């Protein structure tokens, strides 16, 4: 098992290098640092000196790949590529435009992000499976038919509407919970409830419908007929036989996003004023803080690759055919 994990981690390295090269190309090759400086400073304040100062502040004044002015190894290391891209591999993200250490920000903001994203994820899966099983149980009846129509309608609604509508209804009309904000400790609950509720409701449409097709596909298989031929109750057939087989694609499909939960949800966090990584990212995008965006891209890729790794491992745990073969 350990050898397997080591192998998978080694396999992930070329992907991370690829991500790194893509971001480097996007941020430094498509546009030169001069362009970025001009854009950020605004048309009025552009002077050669201002541009130079802007670049020096951020360490963008070095050559891109090859520093012919330096000597020895520094020819390679004293460059933008080394400073800004290679250092990402040791999670050295550098400073944001406001001078704060990005790595520190990320660590402190992960908690609030997770406080929202994890419950949404867990409760969401449970709720979707429940609805999907219900539709599968009553398949080909009007209940199932209308269930699907409701799902399609729900997935046709914009995520923004769920947030705005939920905030209006629950916080503004009914005054049940604060409209936005966040606090640590037990106080967090009242801030977390509404975003979680909205996140779960917003995901039901697509989730339940997808899981329904997975269950229906399983129900059509021969082993289900065998179970019925043994005189099993429909509930046993559904919960022991169908659910167990259907969970394999569901769980392994869900595991891949598990690490990415750290990144939080962009929309939810910005609407509810939650100091997580999602709102951090959105603020950075709106303030055009390239250093933060670049760091988040790299972090996202790392988490995704961890997700892939977890998916492979979870397969071997859930599916005996993979575990024992």
């Amino acid at each position: 098992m350990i050898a397997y994990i080591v192998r998978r981690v080694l396999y992930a390295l070329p992907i991370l290098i690829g991500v790194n090269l893509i971001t480097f190309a996007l941020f430094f090759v498509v546009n030169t640092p001069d362009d970025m400086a001009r854009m950020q400073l605004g048309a009025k304040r552009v002077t050669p000196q201002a541009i130079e100062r802007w670049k020096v502040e951020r360490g963008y004044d070095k050559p891109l790949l090859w520093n012919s002015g330096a000597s020895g190894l520094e020819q390679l290391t004293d460059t933008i590529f080394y400073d800004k891209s290679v250092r990402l591999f040791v999670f050295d993200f550098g400073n944001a435009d406001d001078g704060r250490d990005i790595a520190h920000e990320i660590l402190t903001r992960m908690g609030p992000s997770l406080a929202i994203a994890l419950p949404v994820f867990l409760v969401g899966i449970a709720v979707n499976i429940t609805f999907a099983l219900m539709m599968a149980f009553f398949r080909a009846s009007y209940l199932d038919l209308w269930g699907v129509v409701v799902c399609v309608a729900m997935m046709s609604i914009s995520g923004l509407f769920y947030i705005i509508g939920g905030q209006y209804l629950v916080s503004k009309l009914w005054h049940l919970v604060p409209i936005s904000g966040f606090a640590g400790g037990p106080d967090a609950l009242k801030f977390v409830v509404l975003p979680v509720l909205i996140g779960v409701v917003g995901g039901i449409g697509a989730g339940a419908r997808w899981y329904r097709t997975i269950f229906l596909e399983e129900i059509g298989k021969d082993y289900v007929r065998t179970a019925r031929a043994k005189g099993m109750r429909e509930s046993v057939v559904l919960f022991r036989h169908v659910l167990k087989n259907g969970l394999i694609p569901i769980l392994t499909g869900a595991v891949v996003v598990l690490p990415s939960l750290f990144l939080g949800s962009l929309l939810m966090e910005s609407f509810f004023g939650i100091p997580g990584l999602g709102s951090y990212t959105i603020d950075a995008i709106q303030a055009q803080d390239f250093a933060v965006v670049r760091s988040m891209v790299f972090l996202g890729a790392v988490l995704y690759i961890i997700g892939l790794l977890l998916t492979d491992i979870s397969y071997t745990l859930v599916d005996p055919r993979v575990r024992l073969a």
Partner: protein
Amino acid sequence: MLFQPVILWTDALVFLLLVALAGVVVYVRRHEHLRQPWRRVAHSATGMAGAVVLAFFVLVGVLDSLHYRARAGGDSSRGNVYAVEITSVLDALLRSLKERPEKTYSAPLGYQLYARETVELPDGRQSREYPRLRHGGAHLKAPQDEWRPDVGRRALAGAAIGFVLWVVAATLVSAHIARATGEGIDRAWRALARGELDMPWRAILATLGALLVLVCVAAALAGKYHVLGTSKVGEDVLYQALKSVRIALVIGTLTTLVMLPFAILLGIGAGYFKGWADDIIQYLYTTLNSIPAVLLIAAAVLMMQVYIDTRPQAFPTSVERADLRLLFLCAILGVTSWTGLCRLLRGETLKIRELDYIQAAQAFGVSHLRIITRHILPNVMHIVLIAVVMEFSSLVLAEAVLSYVGVGVDPSMISFGTMINAARLEMARDPMVWWSLASAFGFMFALVLSANLFADAVRDAFDPRVAVIKPFRLRLAALAAAKAPA
């Protein structure tokens, strides 16, 4: 010339898409095995209801894609001078909406502004009251008493016109059925009303009726009122919503146009050739997939913005700049979304290449290119089609989110995303300014729902794994057989 046609980049691609679509329709009509699944789509009631609504939106979008510059001034002696402003046919049709701005917010069908203002009364005193609108309900003399009957009368007249149009349409359909079946038009109509026909005409006509009545009521009211109110700068919200339709359609369709070549070429290539080609392509899409889509889009759009902002001379008008940004957004969305379809196609190709008919072709020494184009491509097209129709609605929804984040369409462009973005800040006001938000969400919901319903019908018809179960029909058939003399 009364006008000078202007073809923006996205217009050109939209027209290209329409031409390609027409070509596909002609091709499908000639091939029975391709027509068959489409017939199943046509027999789905929800799918066709969705298609009717979708067709309406497409009509709006196409009208909005016919751009031109109007001739400026009446002086023809100096040759043709055209206005700088680029307008579309839709703009011309909606001129009454577009060119009646108010000062600021006003509620739907309102006749006064949303905010109180200090006005000077004729006797010189000042009073804070809701000023009358410049255009909305301006014809009313005593609005408190006249408003309600006036709105009612106009709405009724509009509904009546809509109903008449619907009756005409229904009669035409009945006549068509009567001619096809060789029976009387009254019997055709009865069969239609009972839903006994293969084609779900009842659902189609019901949707069409609702749509016609809605459009006609809106049109009847729009002459004198702002049906959906006005925005912060006093622009008619109905006009904004209709203009947003084109952006949504462009993003939903052009993105797939960008994505398809990548997905098809690489997906089939990886699955067919296997070995190192497969390794490289898999590496490529795993790498792209590993970057969170929003962040990749954000990074790319930020960089593009830098590019455009530092080269103002390359983009003379704001419309052209916004258009190019839209096109670029489609391209970026395409680059981030081809991986899913690519993986599907790779998997399917891996399966198909082991089938006997491929081996038979190899036993003839048929070239790889011919095997791919004649054997594999036609047999994965249903997957491509399903992916395209399913992708459309998620792209429309994504536009709103991206515009909200600030990496969507150009802020000067009216889209669902920019409408929502502008309106959500007013949520805190009291009384609430809800109409902008509601209109954007409402239009978006109608568009996405109809697209989803249509996409569902397409998937059911084309995906061999989805078996449609109709348990109720058998019992009917059994009863009918029992009644019939043995």
